[in-house]
């Protein structure tokens, strides 16, 4: 059992704020700690005004004993930049984002990353047994996560819990990794839930997967049939993930496609489908060029469907004998459509799809049951708020949302 727990406040949105408070109230010998930079700089999805942040800072310091760490560290080494890139790519949705391209955002999140180094010094001084942190992948949290994982400090990630009025606690990194798949799988096997609720949730889950916005908006049929359809993930979402933390390795499109072709041979026909979400990425044209140049000349041509091509991914799946993915959740769509899937990445879907018990339980018709464990996600790792906390959360959310609306309004005014 742990003796002292640090709860890192590294996000000032409603749910992380309330979660940090709730954890602090419920965990003996725990304390709240934040770096000063959190109240000065903007992190991913943070639209709040600096005055509001100062109010929050005052309230937390005076009433909840928040410890504020002053800035000391002034630089970051090359190997400490992953959190910065992760936040930068997520905020800008640009996999080619650089310091020069987005100097203002870059400098803010670099400050946050330097702040996380100060927090590490504080944790080392205090010799904490366990740490709670929000997300764990952003500029303000990545280095702390890395420090805890490297030093075997018990680490728990707190996160949003969708619309269920609470928060989630992840004992492993909150990425769709094999470790998370194992937890979902255990919940499915050993859990207590109503079978009717499960079946109902499963139907809704399948409907939402097969009628996603991507499926609705892309209706073009593929031109021919293929032996293998390769589906790529969107680069800006996955480029900065640390395999030591989440057990998932990101392979860029070229590397991934090469390994698929090496595995299945050059004599087959291939379709490569870029993630339609990549259309948001200003760098997508460069990625396509890289992909075209990086792939070997094959006996048959490779058909490359870029994010701008409105080809129906489900039709493409049905037109292929085999679907191959790395980290993309399209693998679930392919399984639901009854196609054999080879998942290269260590994802939660792979963990459950390849599990011998799951296959024998579904009598080798995994298409029928694969959705069930994932249908339980609404309650997965969820801890709930009290009625009062829900009201406070709603009010904080309203404040945050009004700042977000004001920001988007002022941006549109500036453009005009």
């Amino acid at each position, binding site marked *: 059992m742990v003796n002292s*727990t640090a709860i890192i406040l590294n996000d000032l949105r409603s749910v992380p704020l309330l979660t940090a408070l709730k954890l602090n109230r*419920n965990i003996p010998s725990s304390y709240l700690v934040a770096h000063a930079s959190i109240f000065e700089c903007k992190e991913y999805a943070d639209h709040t005004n600096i005055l509001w942040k100062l109010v929050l800072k005052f309230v937390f310091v005076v009433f909840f004993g928040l410890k504020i760490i002053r800035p000391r560290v002034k630089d970051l080494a090359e190997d400490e930049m992953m959190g910065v890139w992760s936040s930068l790519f997520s905020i800008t949705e640009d996999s080619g984002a650089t310091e020069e391209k987005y100097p203002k955002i870059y400098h803010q999140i670099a400050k946050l990353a330097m702040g996380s180094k100060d927090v590490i010094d504080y944790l080392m001084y205090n010799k904490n047994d*366990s740490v709670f942190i929000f997300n764990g992948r952003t500029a303000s949290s990545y280095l702390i996560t890395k420090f805890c994982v490297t030093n075997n400090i018990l680490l728990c990630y707190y996160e949003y819990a969708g619309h269920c009025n609470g928060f989630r*606690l992840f004992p492993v990194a909150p990425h769709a990794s094999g470790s998370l798949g194992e937890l979902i799988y255990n919940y499915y096997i050993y*859990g207590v*839930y109503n079978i009717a609720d499960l079946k109902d949730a499963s139907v809704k889950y399948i409907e*939402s997967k097969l009628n996603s916005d991507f499926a609705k908006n892309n209706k073009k049929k593929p031109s021919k049939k293929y032996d293998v359809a390769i589906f790529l993930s969107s680069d800006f979402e996955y480029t900065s993930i640390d395999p030591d933390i989440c057990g998932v390795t990101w392979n860029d499109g070229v590397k991934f496609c090469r390994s698929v072709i090496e595995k299945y041979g050059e004599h087959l026909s291939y379709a490569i489908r870029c993630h339609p979400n990549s259309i948001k990425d200003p760098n997508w044209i460069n990625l396509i060029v890289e992909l075209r140049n990086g792939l070997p000349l094959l006996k048959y041509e490779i058909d490359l469907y870029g994010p701008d091509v409105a080809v129906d991914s489900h039709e493409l799946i049905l037109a292929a004998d085999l679907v191959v993915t790395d980290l993309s959740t399209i693998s679930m769509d392919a399984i639901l459509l009854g196609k054999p899937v080879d998942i290269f990445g260590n994802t939660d879907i792979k963990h459950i799809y390849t599990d011998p018990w799951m296959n024998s339980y579904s009598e080798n018709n995994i298409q029928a049951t694969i959705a069930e464990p994932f249908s339980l996600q609404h309650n997965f790792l969820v*801890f709930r708020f009290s009625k009062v906390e829900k009201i406070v959360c709603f009010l904080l959310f309203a404040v945050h949302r009004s700042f977000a609306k004001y920001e988007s309004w002022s941006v549109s005014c500036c453009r005009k």
Partner: protein
Amino acid sequence: MLQKIILRNYWPFLRFVNLKGLGGFYSRSGEDVLLASILFSHVIKNSSIKIIEINKPESYPYSLANVFFEFCACTAMLINTRNRLIFAAAKNAAELSGLKSTNDISSKDTYGCLNAYVNDSKLYEYSSNEQLVISMSKYSMEYSLVILSAEIESIQLLSELLGGLKIYCIIVLNNNSGFFSCGNTEIRNTLAQKGFVFHTRLNGNDDLFVLSEMVNGFPSNVSAQLNIDSLMRWVSPPPDSDYTVPK
């Protein structure tokens, strides 16, 4: 009503169920109906479940494990702490190593297990709780359900079982002492420290505890390490029964 208000004050998501009017399969107040209903999803995915029953109360004509014999391949370890006897009841042989087998099953009514006498069910003697836990852990490390009444000997044995075995669900019968028959809070707090969620209060009398990983998937060993027992109060199935993934 007062009991409900008092208990809900601390366990806001506690479910109150009254099955006295309905009755049960082998019980008079519906205890086995509740267990079968709550554990159904668990049982259908775990073909051979193991149950431990400590000191069946005399007011109960049959073991609450009986119903599980009816619809699944269950093994029940029915323990009598007063006589230091364990009755290993199973449709197939349940051998407990390291314990002395005895033929004296004259007290079979003590166990109230109807189906236990099929095939090779056996009665064993044990000398100490430690010896019992070691022997049971050799048989299996995982037990789906422990049934016990709220008396000191049973609770002592339960705490030793929890130290050596993985237990998914616990029902404490007749936990109705104290203020407005609200029951003993100590056992609830102790079980919360082990990662159990106080799931249901049955007939204002019995407490049902379920491991957190069965309710929301959070591993109980991590919750015990993290010392987050008071957060167990905030774990619950979706109040609206909706498990759908939010868009």
